[in-house]
């Protein structure tokens, strides 16, 4: 399976994975998260776990089970870790969290593994079953830089028993963490329907299906209908661009049935743009991967004008399709776009409009930036790099004894 990635990353890179993993042959690794389907974590584990097995590691993936009450609490915990609010964690909730954790210990036998990766807060309490000689790693996918103190205290009850933790970027790390903290950004998979190559015909068919003119330049933002993604700001920028450039705007996204705010934002932007024949507001079903892929490939310029963002991997998805991206200078967007090289980082509606115009006006610039954008993703944000980072982390956590392995030996 890893061989399939040679056309993307080169044979040498895949060979290096095999060399690296020789040190880990036979090691038993367990990943635990809270869902087999849906969300970025499950998507990554569906690939990473078989990859590890192909490399000679005995990797398994188990899912932590909970009921509505449990997940309602962990959702609140997630939100409180992300941003402080008026809400509090009650002692009942703490007790219930422990109860569900103990129940899961019956189904998830963690004792047979050398390395245990726990993804996000839901299964974090399993650490209470940590054995001697085991290494436990907490993989946090949340921005915890400004947590609610009580939520952080809750996490800390478990975190200090872990051997290491992982965050997407240093900006997401709460400053009081005391255990070793590694930085591993998320990644995209070139074989996911969102990212696979598409025939030109399929791209054209998708555009025409939605009434979009393939001959006219397209500005695209793909995001949930959420105020923090600033669809209104994108529309304002489009209006500024439209004064001189005949172009179209697509805002493609989704909102869940249980997301009243998403529906409100969708209706508001729909009303606002009702008279604009060149604006397309597309509310797509959640599994519209190939449609989104086609829209990204058909776009002239991709925009991600979020006011606040987690990592925002949708930026890498567009970059992988050789598209220059105009993105806000926030969250993970600023870690993906190299300003002036793979796209532009902007601070305002006006800035976004100016950069979009520059790109619409200059095909060579688009091509050059698009080329660098794809190269950037190839090296930094593909799943192969993610896998390599995990292997390296395991080696470091185990205290590798290779004679070449430590820098301290280099300049001691």
């Amino acid at each position, binding site marked *: 399976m890893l061989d399939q990635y040679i056309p993307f990353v*080169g044979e*040498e*890179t895949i*060979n*290096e994975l095999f*060399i*690296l993993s020789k040190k880990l042959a036979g090691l038993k690794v367990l990943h635990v998260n809270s869902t087999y389907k849906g969300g970025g974590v499950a998507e990554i584990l569906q690939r990473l776990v078989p990859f590890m097995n192909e490399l000679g590691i005995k990797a398994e993936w188990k899912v932590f089970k909970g009921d509505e009450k449990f997940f309602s609490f962990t959702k609140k915990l997630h939100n409180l870790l992300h941003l402080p609010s008026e809400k509090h964690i009650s002692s009942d909730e703490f007790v219930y969290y422990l109860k569900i954790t103990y129940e899961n210990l019956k189904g998830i036998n963690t004792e047979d593994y050398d390395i245990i990766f726990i993804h996000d807060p839901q299964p974090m309490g399993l650490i209470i079953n940590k054995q001697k000689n085991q290494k436990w790693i907490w993989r946090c996918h949340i921005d915890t830089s400004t947590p609610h103190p009580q939520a952080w205290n809750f996490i800390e009850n478990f975190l200090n028993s872990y051997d290491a933790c992982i*965050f997407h970027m*240093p*900006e997401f*790390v709460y*400053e009081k*963490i005391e255990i*070793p*903290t*590694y*930085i*591993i950004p998320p990644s995209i998979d070139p074989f996911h329907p969102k990212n696979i190559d598409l025939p030109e015909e399929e791209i054209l068919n998708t555009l025409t299906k939605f009434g979009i003119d393939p001959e006219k330049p397209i500005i695209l933002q793909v995001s949930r209908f959420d105020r923090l993604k600033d669809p209104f700001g994108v529309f304002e920028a489009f209006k500024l661009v439209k004064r001189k450039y005949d172009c179209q705007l697509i805002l493609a996204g989704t909102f869940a049935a249980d997301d009243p705010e998403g529906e409100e934002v969708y209706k508001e932007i729909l009303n606002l743009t009702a008279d604009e024949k060149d604006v397309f507001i597309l509310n797509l079903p959640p599994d519209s991967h190939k449609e989104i892929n086609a829209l990204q490939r058909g776009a002239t310029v991709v925009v991600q004008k979020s006011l606040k963002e987690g990592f925002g991997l949708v930026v890498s998805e567009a970059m992988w399709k050789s598209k220059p991206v105009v993105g806000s200078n926030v969250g993970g967007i600023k870690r993906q776009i*190299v300003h*002036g*090289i*793979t796209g532009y980082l902007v601070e305002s509606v006006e800035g976004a409009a100016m950069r979009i115009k520059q790109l619409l006006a200059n095909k060579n610039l688009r091509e050059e930036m698009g080329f*660098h954008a794809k*190269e*950037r993703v*190839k*090296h*930094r944000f593909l799943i192969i790099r993610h896998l*390599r*980072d995990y292997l*390296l*982390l395991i*080696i*470091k956590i185990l205290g*590798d004894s*290779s004679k*070449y*392995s*430590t*820098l301290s030996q*280099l*300049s001691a």
Partner: protein
Amino acid sequence: MNISFVFKSELWIPRYTGIRVYSLNEFIDALKVVDRFSIFYHMFINIFNYHNLPTYYTNSLSYWFYKNGYPSLAEKISAIDPLDYFDLEELRNALINTLEKSNNNWYRKEKYPFYFITAEREIIECGNIAQNLDEFIDGIRKSSINSIFYHLITSRIENKTIVNDYSAWLYNVGEVKKAEKINKLDPYTMTLYEIKEKIVKILEGD
């Protein structure tokens, strides 16, 4: 004399040091105490991670100065070539001296903080060994850019010399001109892919 050349490669995983600074004053204080491989990380990351991209500055420290409105400091720090140093402590001192000579607002809280990261490296043997020039060229052709980075750049720190691994081996086998040409390659003006091509061309030349 052993003339074997063992091809190796270098991989990094970044570890956050927990040091986050907001002002020039804090930045210099941190620079004085931070793990020396944090300096290594920030001075070399532009070659290591952005080896495939053109960049405005040669290191990530300079970007921080630039982003916070100190273009002159960014240029001065960018002009410090880490390849001139095989001792990371000397490199640290060069950075501190340059910063301390500048006349800036030391205590102003900057808009963007700087996060000190350190590199945890893993050096692996690639399985290729060269005994003569033909095998050496073949080995380089098969090398990843991480391997090129290791032999051309960081091997100097390991061996405490300003001569890179490739050139050291070439000197040993009497290929002095080729050794000198490779040692003069400037990794900041080319991508590592271009450097790899250039090395092969130099080796194939007369």
